[in-house]
């Protein structure tokens, strides 16, 4: 599939492992957080690929690995036919221009001391698209127009805007360098419900207008389903299921996807009263100690005596008649679950010691703790 010119991003076997360090000056590695642990993923030109999954499953880390902001421990990411990791200097800078990022919290990702004009101009200058703000002015006004803000916004500062408007500024900034791909990490989750829809619609309009490709990372399945053409469902660092948005909703195959879908509340009492819910038991395991075999086996209601605990299932096209094209699932027993041959059973809840996660947090403290230790 790599030679397909339709594919803009091709990630192969991507792993991102963070070392957990302990000891006086953190010289001892006592384990790893397997944040991303073997992901193959292709994003086609002009499509929106949505990544969903619960907190800590590695969505953001995978997004960052695709941007090469987090160099993969293993595997490769090809962007527009070029291996990003191999790029240096000018070539890397040029590629970076093609991939822009939109963040969850617009306030913390925008420098509060910079006016909107300088925020938008900054990237253009860095990529040699304009020499001074005056020359860039028509383009800046055009950008603001595109995201639905008045020209007067140029002279204001981020704190003078509402959350939704700040997200518009963040999007305008990403657009300012004419990117091909926008990686949006939780672009609407910090926004009020009534404002989320404005930003979702804006992203859709801009995609059409500028022929953009999106990778949208979010935990809200309803938002992801609405905005995406294809969706990857992540669980503990790996993709459990991948399908066209409609197929995923119509025929969720992986037990985790089924549980996830059935857990999303729908703002309709009639649906809520009728709904069959698959309640998962227990906690999400720590990504520093992922279960062997199928990572979902500690919570899976369909887990079997054989294979599940010992063999890691690969993402594959299941042998189920009528299943949509490109629908892939990482479960040993998909066919049997779908046919009803295997029935769900009770699961004894397992609990995850949060201190496992605590170890991760400590390692995140990094430099501050090192200086303390010294």
């Amino acid at each position, binding site marked *: 599939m790599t030679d397909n010119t339709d594919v803009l991003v091709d990630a192969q076997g991507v792993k991102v492992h963070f070392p957990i360090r302990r000891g006086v000056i953190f010289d001892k590695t006592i384990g790893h957080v397997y944040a991303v642990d073997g992901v193959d993923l292709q994003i086609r030109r002009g499509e929106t690929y949505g990544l969903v999954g619960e907190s800590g499953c590695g969505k953001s880390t995978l997004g960052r690995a695709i941007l090469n902001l987090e160099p993969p421990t293993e595997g490769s990411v090809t962007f527009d036919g070029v291996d990003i990791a191999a790029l240096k200097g000018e070539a890397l800078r040029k590629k970076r221009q093609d991939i822009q990022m939109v963040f969850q919290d617009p306030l913390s990702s925008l420098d509060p001391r910079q006016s909107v004009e300088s925020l938008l101009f900054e990237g253009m200058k860095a990529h040699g698209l304009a020499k001074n703000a005056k020359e860039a002015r028509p383009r800046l006004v055009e950008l603001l127009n595109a995201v639905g803000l008045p020209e007067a916004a140029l002279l204001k500062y981020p704190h003078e805007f509402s959350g939704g408007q700040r997200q518009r500024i963040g999007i305008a900034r990403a657009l300012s360098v004419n990117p091909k791909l926008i990686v949006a990490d939780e672009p609407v989750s910090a926004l009020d419900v009534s*404002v989320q*829809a404005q930003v979702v619609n804006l992203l859709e309009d801009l995609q059409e207008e500028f022929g953009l490709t999106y990778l949208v990372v979010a935990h809200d399945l309803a938002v992801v389903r609405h905005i995406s053409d294809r969706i990857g469902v992540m669980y503990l660092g790996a993709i459990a299921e991948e399908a066209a948005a*409609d197929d995923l909703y119509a025929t969720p195959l992986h037990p985790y996807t089924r549980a996830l879908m059935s857990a999303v*509340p*729908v703002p309709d009492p009639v649906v809520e009263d009728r709904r069959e819910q698959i309640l998962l038991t227990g906690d999400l395991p720590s990504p520093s100690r992922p279960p062997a075999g199928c990572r979902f086996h500690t919570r899976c209601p369909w887990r079997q005596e054989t294979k599940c605990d010992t063999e890691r299932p690969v993402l594959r096209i299941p042998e189920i008649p009528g299943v949509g094209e490109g629908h892939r699932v990482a479960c040993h027993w998909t066919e049997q679950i779908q046919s009803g041959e295997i029935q769900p059973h009770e699961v*004894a809840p397992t*609990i995850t010691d949060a201190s496992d996660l605590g170890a991760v947090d400590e390692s995140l403290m990094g430099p501050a703790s090192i200086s303390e230790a010294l």
Partner: protein
Amino acid sequence: MTTTTPRDTNPMDATPTDTSNVADRDKARRWQQGGSEPLLKVRDLRVTFQRQGQEPFEAVQGVSFDVHPGQTVGLVGESGCGKSVTSLAIMGLLPARGNKVTGTVDYEGTNLLDLSDQQMRDKRGKDIAMVFQDPLSSLNPVIPIGLQVTEVLERHRGMSRKAATPVARDLLDRVGIPDPDRRLKDYPHQLSGGMRQRALIAIALACQPRLLIADEPTTALDVTIQAQILALLKELVEDTGTALVMITHDLGVVAGLCDEVNVLYGGRIVERGERHDLFAQPRHPYTHGLLASIPRLDAPRGQRLNPIPGSVSDNLPWTSACAFAPRCSQPIEVCTQKMPELVEQHQRALRCFNPVEANR
């Protein structure tokens, strides 16, 4: 909602704490027929924050609602609309300085706002309990969770430590914490977010409250964990007859859980109704707009969302207008001239001069 297999250890298994509020359960049936007296009557609740050197800011501007025994009442609205301040005012938990609270919070004939700090502390232990969004900050980090439960039992139910321990164990079991004997000794930081929220619910239940106020109890949790906690709350309410005030920004959560729903905007209730009726026929343009703007998992794809324009920063002051007017899809002249009052009609309360047409 029907729950298929699998599920947690059944929190409804008979435990020594099961005897609570049987009378309330019967009363609960009565309010459904419109008979019972409210357990809690909030009337014209106002909270004004007085910040140094700044204009006073009225975060809650005259909120009134009832909660009947066994009833689940929802307060929904976007961030900053006054949900948390309302609940903190009811619980007497607002900071002692810098704010003014007026109106009445009538709990079975007593105005909670008149109680001394000590009296309020007793009420909070015995009759009313609260669960917050962030369980870590509401649990004591240096005390094992088992001890935090037994302390409540000792203080409010007069049990000895020895008698309280098995009850605490049963409470942890009942809220679905696996291996409760072992978990009694765990500190909050050793538990995941979902387990911490369960522990907090166990502490809240320890005093067999007749009213539980839950402020965004699942907002910080993942959706599969949220489903577990919501199922737990629902079962507890059905089993014990505890009244529940559910505060959330998520209309989906409300749709599945609440008997009656209050929609807040800018510190005031703008619409109230029975959940089926309200969702089937939202009459306030804000409620209507909210429902139209949310992407639904079960909606046909390819449909464009219908956002509410602007943001809360465009609000007008309620004193002289409808605060929502600048964002409303169907304002009329009077909307910017005076404030619409909350009018009750046919099981619905509505604050609007030009409501959305009822289509039946």
